[in-house]
């Protein structure tokens, strides 16, 4: 059996929605270009729908054997200057950002 997904069309709205999710500003004139580029890429990857993947387990890594665990020891920290050395704005050891409104 071949899985067939609904044709999903990418609109300018889709581009705005995902750029908002990804926190990337997109100029209005860019939206159209991205719409066509991403549409064609997405159409192209939909070739995967030809493949029968029923009863196939997804594979997220080629390594097998499971996760290795470390011992519960404090081996790190106390490197405030390393943490802050590339910071755009900091004060009193805090990172500073424009006010977050909750």
């Amino acid at each position, binding site marked *: 059996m071949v899985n067939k997904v609904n044709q999903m069309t990418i609109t300018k709205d889709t581009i705005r929605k995902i750029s908002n999710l990804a926190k990337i500003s997109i100029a209005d004139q860019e939206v159209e270009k991205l719409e066509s*580029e991403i549409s064609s890429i997405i159409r192209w990857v939909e070739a*995967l729908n030809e493949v029968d993947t029923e009863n196939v387990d997804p594979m997220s890594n080629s*390594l097998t054997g499971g996760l290795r665990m*470390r011992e519960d020891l404090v081996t790190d920290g106390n490197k405030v200057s390393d943490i802050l050395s590339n910071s755009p704005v900091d004060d009193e050891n805090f990172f500073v950002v424009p006010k977050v409104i909750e």
Partner: protein
Amino acid sequence: MIDLVSSDLVSIRNSLQNKEFTAVELLSEYIERITKSSKLNLFNTTNFENALKAAKESDQKIIRGEARSLEGVPIGVKDLFCTAGVRTTASSKILENFVPAYESTITQKLYDQGMILLGKLSNDEFAMGSSNETSSSGPAVNPWKSCSSDKELVPGGSSGGSSGAVAASLCPFATATDTGGSIRQPAAFTGTVGLKPTYGRCSRWGIVAFASSLDQAGPITKTVADSALALKYMAGYDEKDSTSADVGVEDYQQFVGQSIKGMTVGVPKEYEELDLEDDIKLNWHDAINWYKSAGAEIVSISLPHSKYALPAYYIIAPAEASSNLARYDGVKYGTRITGDDLDDLYKNTRGLGFGAEVKRRILIGTYVLSAGYYDAYYLKAQKVRRLIHSDFVEAFKKVDVIMTPTTPTTAFGIGENLSDPLKMYSNDILTVPVNLAGLPAISIPSGLDSQGLPMGIQIITNHFNEGKLFQFGSIVEKSRSSITNQSEWWL
């Protein structure tokens, strides 16, 4: 005067240890050559001052008989490896002033053997690209030119700075990373040897991540023997990387030149159908004969799902990248571009800090993971990934290695493929399946095409069997015709 062009990693290492020249002399030659080669635009950052200090120390060690395995040998490092105190940009505007306080595991291991950092090599921004044109510092340039045209060619990508620097003899060995072909394709485009080890073979700690389940570091060198030597010191278990495999590292040089008599080489029949340049096809058939002559049996194999590797890759890699690159938000480090509020800060920083290709891939990755599309795209691609992996597992029950061309074309002109992402992506058609399956593979220069441009043969083998790559790789190296770059036009 040291002949850098005809030197390789092994010969330089030996000359230093035999005190034929000093590390300082060698370094000075490299610095001079690098300085003269600025047209190639291969270095993002140079490290000459520190390097000189280190070279002096290396010379002391050599004199005292305390030389380590690669004492005093200069190295170029892809600008994706974090280097303590040395700017690390991933060739992105968003990290243009980032100076890590830490050293990647791999570069540290190489320093521990006495290697000296020459500088940081250009790459496609965040390793996303196949031409090294997406770097924020502008395109890197291939030292090779076609015999019929004067146009500048791409050195391949994303490790174009690394491949270009080794090809131009600006360093005997450069580190690189390969997510979908980013070591092998540039190696093929520049007549160098590019090795992508098994996923988990080399630590990813301290390497700017692109797609974590696919990224793997490896060396670009001039010869197979150099590659074997380099891997020995790059490879190894790292407890700081949960995906680093605790599998013993061998002395890989022993495999170089070892007989392959009675062993089997698989040739995937599906790849015959691919749209490959004629010269590349011919070269591939030549290679089949080289292996026959060397006593190997050629076996036709089938990798039925390989043709789905590219689409699967262009879902999985952007998905992982969209998440991996979320940390570049202008809060903790890197470029910050403010606006009216925090949301503006995020969007401006990322909108202006990332280049077009990176943004495109982040958006694709965001899309395929978003609610309603995850199953249709991401999950589907991960299932196809398993089928691709299983194809290889089946094949390696029958053959020792699989041999294919590395790329469908030789190096193309700068700007030629930029406007068509899909055409650009198709460059990786022969290399991407290997990353999805986590396998090791090597690209060996296998001759020049009718334009005088280098071609590469890719050899793939089973997980953690890198030795066979060197064993089979040296056959290509021995059998091919000369691939010397006749003109040093950029100097």
